[in-house]
C-alpha cells in the first residue's frame, strides 16, 4: 500500500479538527474569506489566532495523535485513504490555491483516481440546496452529458443541485468526485447515504478533515475552494442571491478558473444569483456543449440527443409546458385543445421522455432536445 499522508500534514488535519469550534467562532459571518485566510496560516499561527489561551495544548494534542497511528487505524477501519502534498498522488490542481491549499486529504473510493484528476477535463457544478425541478433537471442533464463525454463532474453532495449533478454523472457512466465539508468516511447529509455509496464506487469522496471530525459551518465554504480549484470551469446552475454556491464561483475566479451560470426566469428568486453572475460577465451555460466549449475551446462538438417525432397536438402541448404550464388544465387553456386530447398528449410526451411529472402530477420539461 503506497504511502499516506505524512505525520506533519496529518497533525495539521487533526489540528483543524480539534480547533474546529474555535475556528467557527473566529469566522463570524464572512465565512468565505476568513476561513480561507485562516487556512493559509501555519499551525502555530492558526492556533494562536483562534485559541490563544489553549494554543500550546491544541498543538501538542494534534502532534501526539498523528504520531500514535490512531488516525490511520480509523482510516483503515472505514476503508479510507489519506494523502498529502508530499506524496506523489497529490493532485497538482491544488497548487493553484497557494498558501491556503489543503495539506492532508482523506478520501473514499479508488485512490488511483487522484493521479488522473485533470482540471482541463473536469467541471464543477454547484447550486442551491433549495433548487426546484428546473435546477435539478438542468444539473442532472449537464452532468450526464459531460460525464458521457469523458469529463469528471465535481460537486459537494449537498441537497438540490449538487446531488442532481452527481446522479447525472453516474447515470452518464462517468466519474464524479464529491468534496465533503465533513469527514470523507460518512455521508453528509445523512439522507444522501445511497448516493454516497454510489459515489464511492463510481468516483471519489474527498475531505480535508480527518475521519470523525465534527461538522461546522466554516467547513463548507472552506471546501468550496477545493471544488473551485479542481476544475477549469465552475458552473452555477440555480442559485439565489445569497447562496453559498456563489462563494464557490468567487473562489473559482480568484484561482484563475472560469465561471459559467445557467440563466433562469427573471422573476424567480431561485435564479437571481445566477442571473446576477451573468450580468457580471459569467459565461452563459445553456447545455453541456457550452461547458465543453469553455473547457476545450470553441467548436467542441458532441451529439445532442433528440427524441422521437411529435404530432401537431403533442408539439403544442410541449410548447405549453415549456412556457410554464404545469397542469393539464393550464395546458388546455394555453393551447385551446380539448382536455381529453391534452391528457393524451401529456401522457404520450411523458412516455417519450420530453416531460416528466412530479409526485403531485405537475409537469416539467426535461432536457431532451426536440427532434430535428
Amino acid at each position, binding site marked *: 500500500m503506497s504511502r499516506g499522508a505524512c505525520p506533519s500534514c496529518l497533525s495539521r488535519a487533526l489540528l483543524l479538527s480539534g480547533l474546529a469550534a474555535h475556528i467557527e467562532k473566529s469566522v463570524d459571518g464572512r465565512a468565505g474569506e476568513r476561513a480561507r485566510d485562516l487556512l493559509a496560516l501555519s499551525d502555530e499561527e492558526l492556533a494562536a489566532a483562534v485559541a490563544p489561551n489553549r494554543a500550546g495544548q491544541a498543538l501538542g494534542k494534534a502532534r501526539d495523535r498523528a504520531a500514535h497511528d490512531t488516525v490511520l487505524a480509523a482510516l483503515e477501519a472505514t476503508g479510507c485513504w489519506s494523502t498529502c502534498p508530499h506524496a506523489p498522488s497529490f493532485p497538482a490542481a491544488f497548487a493553484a490555491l497557494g498558501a491556503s491549499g489543503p495539506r492532508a486529504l482523506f478520501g473514499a473510493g479508488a485512490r488511483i483516481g487522484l493521479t488522473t484528476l485533470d482540471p482541463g477535463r473536469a467541471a464543477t457544478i454547484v447550486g442551491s440546496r433549495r433548487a426546484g425541478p428546473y435546477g435539478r433537471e438542468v444539473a442532472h442533464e449537464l452532468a450526464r452529458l459531460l460525464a458521457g463525454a469523458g469529463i469528471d463532474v465535481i460537486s459537494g453532495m449537498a441537497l438540490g443541485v449538487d446531488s442532481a449533478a452527481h446522479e447525472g454523472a453516474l447515470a452518464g457512466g462517468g466519474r464524479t468526485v464529491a468534496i465533503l465539508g465533513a469527514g470523507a468516511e460518512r455521508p453528509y447529509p445523512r439522507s444522501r447515504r445511497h448516493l454516497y455509496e454510489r459515489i464511492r464506487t463510481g468516483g471519489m469522496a474527498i475531505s480535508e478533515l480527518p475521519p470523525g471530525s465534527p461538522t461546522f459551518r466554516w467547513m463548507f465554504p472552506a471546501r468550496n475552494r477545493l471544488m473551485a480549484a479542481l476544475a477549469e470551469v465552475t458552473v452555477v446552475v440555480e442559485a439565489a442571491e445569497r447562496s453559498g454556491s456563489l462563494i464557490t464561483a468567487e473562489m473559482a475566479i480568484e484561482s484563475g478558473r472560469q465561471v459559467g451560470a445557467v440563466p433562469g426566469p427573471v422573476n424567480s428568486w431561485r435564479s437571481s444569483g445566477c442571473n446576477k453572475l451573468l450580468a457580471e460577465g459569467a459565461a452563459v451555460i445553456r447545455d453541456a456543449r457550452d461547458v465543453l466549449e469553455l473547457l476545450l475551446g470553441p467548436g467542441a462538438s458532441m451529439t445532442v440527443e433528440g427524441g422521437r417525432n411529435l404530432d401537431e397536438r403533442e408539439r403544442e402541448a410541449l410548447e405549453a409546458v415549456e412556457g410554464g404550464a404545469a*397542469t393539464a388544465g393550464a395546458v388546455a387553456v394555453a393551447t385551446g385543445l380539448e382536455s381529453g386530447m391534452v*391528457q393524451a398528449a401529456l401522457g404520450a410526451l411523458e412516455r417519450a421522455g420530453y416531460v416528466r411529472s412530479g*409526485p*403531485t*402530477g*405537475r409537469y416539467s420539461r426535461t432536457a431532451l432536445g426536440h427532434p430535428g
Partner: protein
Amino acid sequence: MLARTRTFAIQGIDAVPVDVEIDIHRGLPAFSLVGLPDPAVRESRERVRAAIVNSGFEFPLKRITASLAPADLRKAGPGFDLAIAAAILCASEQIPVEPLELWWLAGELALDGSIRSLPGVLAMAERAALSGSGIAVAAANAGEAGLVEGAVVASLRSLSDLAALARGELEPLPPAPPSVPPAAVDLPDMADLRGQAALRNALEVAAAGGHGLLVTGPPGAGKSLAARRLPSILPPLTRAEAIEVTRIASVAGRPPPDGTLCGRPFRAPHHTISPAGLVGGGSPPRAGEITLAHRGVLFLDELGEFGRTALEALRQPLEEGFVTIARARGTVTMPARFQIVAAANPCPCGHGEDSPRCRCRPDQIRAFEARLSGALADRFDLSIAVDQPTAEELAGDPGESSAAIAARVAEARERAASRLGPGRANASMTEPELTLHAEPDDEGSEALAAGHASFGLSGRGWSRVLKVARTCADLDGSDAVGRRHIDRALSMRRRTKE
C-alpha cells in the same frame, strides 16, 4: 300481573328485537328497570310515570319490575318508553293485552303523554314487515316507516291513541305509493365550476368508473368545489339503494323530510376525525362517516393532515364495501360502499415547489410528500394537479351542466355493467377481468411497452392504468382500448413509490 310488549333496539344500522316484560306485584311502591339500561333508559321511568298519569290513566302504586330482554344486550336511548308504558297499562289491566301482541311499538314519551319520534324507524319497520306484524310509531315517524314495502304502520300521537289501537278503534295507515328517489336537480351543479377543463374531465372519469380521485393544488383552485359536485353526475340511486341510504340516515338521526327518500350522500369529515368516527365504533357501535357515505362520496380534504391510523382503517372497507366492528358480545357489520375523493396541497405552503412563491425547505417538501404518498397510496386510481383558475376562466362561460355529463357517465357505466355485471364499475375489476376486458389493441400495447421504461410503475400500478384506460374507452364509446386511452390514463396516474 305480567305483560309483555315488543320493541326494537338499534345496533349498528340494524334493528334488533327487544322484549319488554312488566311484572306488577303487591308491595311497597317501587319501579325498577333491568337489562343493562343506559342513563336515558333509566330515566324512562320518570317519563313513563308522568305520561301515564297525564293521559288520564292510573300509575299502579305497587312493586313494578321492568325487564328489557335479552338481558345481556346494552340498551340505549328513550325509544323503549312507549313499549314500557304499554306493558304497564296492560299489566294493570287498563288496556286490553291481546291486540297489542300484533304490534311492535317504538317511541319516546313526552311528559304530557304525547309520542316523540326516534332515529332508526326505517330499520325497525323493515324488521317488523319481515316478521309479519305491524309497527306503531310516533306520527312524525309514520312517513318514514311507510317507505318500507309491505309495512303495516299505525301512527300514534299520544298514549290515548295507543289505547285506541289496543281497543281496535284505530286504523293503520293506508300503504303509501312507492316514492322515488329525489332527482339530481337539487344537488350542486357542475356548471358552477368554471374553466378547469382537466378537473371536470377527471371527475367525469372518476364517476364513470368508480375510481378514487386525488386532486392536488393550491388553496382556491376549486378542489373542494369540484368534489362536492361529483354526486350530481353519478347515476341516480335505484329504489333499493335509496332505501338503504335512507335507513342509514334515519339511524344517524338525519332522516330526509317525511316520507321521502335520500339521494346519494356526500360526506366531508374534518381531518381531525378519529378512526372510530371515520369507520364506526363506540359502545354500542355507531355508524361512522364511511357508512354515512354508503352509495355516495367520501371527501377527504387536506389528505396529508389525516391521522395515519384513521386512513389505515379505511383500507379494508374500500376493498370490501363494508366495515366490521368487533365487540366482546359479537361483531356488527355495516355497509360502506363509497367513492373516495381527496384533496391536498402540493407542499406545506400551498404554492407548489415549482412556483416562484414557494418558500418551503427541501426537507419540509420531502416530509410532506412522504406523508401524502403513504396515505392510501394505492387507493387512488386517478391523481391530477390543478392550478388556481385564471381570471379569464372565472369570467368565462359556465361549464357544461351536470345533466349533460351525467348522461355520458350513465352510458359508460352501462357499458361496464354489461361486461362485469349489474351495479359493478371498472374500478372493481379483478386481474382476470382486466385481462379479459381491458387488453389494449396493438397501438395501445405498443404505447404501454414504450412507457414501461419511462414510468417505473409496479404491476399494481399498471393494473390501475389499465382500469382507467378501460373507463376512458367506455366514455369514448369504444370497445377497444387504444393508444389515446392509455395515454390519458397515464397522464392521470397516481405517482408514488410503491
